[in-house]
């Protein structure tokens, strides 16, 4: 149930049947398709207090459309009872979806979007497309959670960076994501291996792997771009913030930066040496991941921290999944060895024209409480952006424990980038990286393909740019 049938709009029936063949008239018709309340959702109608910071009206229902992927949707439903308690029995309806853009497009056009959306997955809506129609979530971060603390003070550093667009915080990424190289500590300990700190270490490890008939890396066709993430992560670590800024702003020579080229060169060496398991360009990505986590044919896999949950039914017993920071090129990298790419995933947005925007924000506030965030960490074995919700034993998860350890070690030395999501590059990145990793494309070809994508987008006046600093 995600759409109430607007009976009052039947009066448009005559219009639709009669005068609709004239494009001009019809454009007006689609534009006015349902927007009877211009300027957006209902303002606060309930009393504003610490327990109701956004003024949710008594009994007001919340309509949430949540991406139904690796994390499911139950973690959002988790706060339904609490919401009802606090707001006079108001209901929280969670509609799972895997086709976010297709399902919600007409609702955005028609002016009746849901109150809360988890805009995630392969069919997510590009943020730039709808940013102007989203609520600024700054009041949310300034509000107090149910434990009485200001929400902004309860989060890991840098977690709100990706959500700012045109100076407004339009999306809140809920799940903390640690990017790095993942491996089996059991396997590494048994062989006396350690996670590579530099790319030369990685190549040496590749040689050791081949001796045992294993590979250093494997990949899947829909996730070839994970290696782009790894490459950029390494390059930023090596070359410092200027690399990240150049990438984020799609600069003309971003991919020719020496640090980037050095990383790509090392990766090409690994490809040439046969350290990548062949066949990745035709393998479904989870099947490829199982080659690493189940069959253990590959030693390392670059990914975000969703990997543990994603592969939990497909991980060999006693795997002790562990994360390491991305390797740098040289020991003299611009950033310390502990630095790594941390950001947040599962972007939640509150459309301005939703019927109950206050309710959408309120659900997010409840989700950011210690209780809900701890529930998420326990059931999904991933941390939310809320600090200190993972106990010492990390619920028995070595992966989660290693993430927390990395966060502690890095302190403020984490970084992030999101140009792929902002400009919708992922498809073409996959095409290019499948070619590179299977040896069809060399460093020069890869560089020019990636740079061309940057240049076209940068010079296209039809595309709104996000300034990165």
């Amino acid at each position: 149930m995600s759409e109430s049938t607007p009976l009052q709009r039947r009066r448009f029936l005559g219009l639709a049947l009669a005068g609709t063949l004239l494009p001009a008239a019809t454009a007006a018709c689609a534009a006015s398709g349902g927007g009877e309340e211009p300027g957006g959702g209902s303002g606060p109608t309930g009393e504003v207090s610490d327990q109701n910071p956004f003024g949710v009206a008594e009994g007001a229902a919340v309509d949430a459309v949540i991406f139904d992927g690796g994390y499911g949707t139950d973690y959002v439903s988790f706060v339904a009872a609490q919401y009802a308690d606090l707001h006079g029995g108001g209901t929280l309806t969670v509609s799972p979806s895997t086709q976010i853009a297709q399902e919600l497009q007409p609702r955005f056009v028609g002016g009746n979007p849901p109150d809360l959306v988890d805009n995630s997955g392969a069919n997510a809506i590009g943020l730039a497309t709808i940013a102007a129609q989203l609520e600024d979530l700054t009041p949310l971060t300034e509000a107090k959670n149910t434990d009485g603390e200001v929400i902004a003070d309860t989060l890991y550093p840098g977690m709100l960076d990706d959500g700012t667009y045109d100076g407004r915080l339009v999306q809140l990424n809920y799940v903390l994501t640690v990017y790095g190289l993942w491996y089996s500590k059991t396997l590494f300990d048994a062989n006396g291996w350690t996670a590579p700190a530099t790319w030369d270490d990685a190549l040496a490890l590749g040689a050791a792997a081949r001796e045992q008939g294993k590979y250093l890396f494997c990949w899947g066709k829909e996730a070839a771009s994970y290696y782009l993430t790894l490459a950029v992560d390494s390059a930023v670590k090596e070359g410092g913030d200027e690399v990240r800024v150049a990438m984020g702003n799609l600069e003309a020579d971003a991919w020719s930066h020496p640090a980037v080229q050095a990383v790509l060169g090392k990766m090409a060496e690994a490809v040439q040496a046969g350290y990548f398991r062949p066949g990745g360009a035709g393998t479904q990505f989870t099947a490829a991941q199982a080659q690493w986590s189940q069959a253990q044919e590959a030693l390392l896999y670059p990914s975000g921290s969703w990997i543990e949950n994603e592969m939990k039914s497909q991980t060999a017993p006693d795997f002790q999944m562990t994360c390491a920071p991305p390797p740098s090129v040289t020991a003299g990298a611009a950033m310390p060895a502990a630095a790594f790419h941390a950001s947040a995933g599962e972007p939640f947005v509150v459309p301005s024209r939703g019927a109950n925007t206050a309710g959408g924000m309120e659900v997010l506030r409840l989700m950011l409480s210690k209780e809900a965030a701890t529930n998420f960490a326990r059931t999904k074995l991933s941390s939310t952006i809320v600090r200190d919700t993972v106990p010492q034993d990390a619920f028995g998860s070595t992966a989660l424990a290693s993430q927390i350890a990395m966060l502690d070690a890095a302190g403020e030395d984490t970084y992030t980038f999101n140009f792929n999501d902002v400009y919708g590059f992922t498809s073409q990145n996959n095409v290019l990286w499948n070619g590179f990793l299977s040896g069809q494309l060399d460093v020069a070809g890869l560089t020019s393909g990636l740079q061309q994508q940057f240049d076209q987008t940068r010079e296209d006046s039809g595309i709104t740019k996000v300034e990165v600093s």
Partner: protein
Amino acid sequence: MSAVTSEPTRSAPARPERRGPSGERTVAVGSHTVLGIWAVLVLLPFAWTVVSSFKTNREIFASPFSLPREWRFQNYVDAWNTAGIGSYFVNSVVVVACALMLTMLMGAMSAYVLARFDFRGRTVLRYLIVAGLTFPVFLAVVPLFFILQQLGVLNTLPGLILSYAAYAYPFTVFFLLSFFEQLPGEIAEAAAIDGASEWRTFFQVMLPMAGPGMAAVAILNFVGLWNQFLLPVVLNSDRSNYVLTQGLAAFASQAGYDVNFGALFAGSVMTVVPVLVVYLVFQRRLQGAVSAGGLK
């Protein structure tokens, strides 16, 4: 390949053999070999899918041929629970059957008039209808969404049925036109002389005569409607109303995240088996219809 009893071929008088019987036999063996290879190519992927649907992930990744060590029906339970394939299947059958009847009736009515009545604007109307064949559906879905909303049938099966029928309509008219043109006019004239109205002539004389052609077009339409994906995704987002293609896509995406390939295979089998049963039960009639459509 097993030899089913020979088809009754067309009434051809037995003729003396030109070639020796051994030459004839060589030809037959050759034909059987080629067709046999084709049959294997068709059946092998399905057989493999069925076997794989009982394997664990580990077995699936280990070898494409090994039989499952134990036949895992759990995959079917998983697929059934995650996917709700049963109700999606029922929705699909309801929507496709209703839309098919509606579009065949409307298509036949329009094709009949366009084929057998002469009036001004007829050619324009024909072009207008053919134009509908050429545009990709997904650019139309957003305006269509608002139309359904205004009609109050968004997220309902009737709304989906109307949309399916409307999108199959140009195709139906396009293929039925020449069929109605080729029907002999004398019968209609005889009916008129007997005092039958135009309406009765259509429903009691012309439509039954067009039966075989209708059947063939209906079968072509069926697969198009059965596979329709984007219309339901946009126009039918209520999960309890999901049709099979939607359900499967959602399931494939979830199975991808859960990495449960056994269940993915099992889900595929569960969608194929009911169609297979229906097909085997009706295949004689279905092929008869296709054949009759060709025989004229």
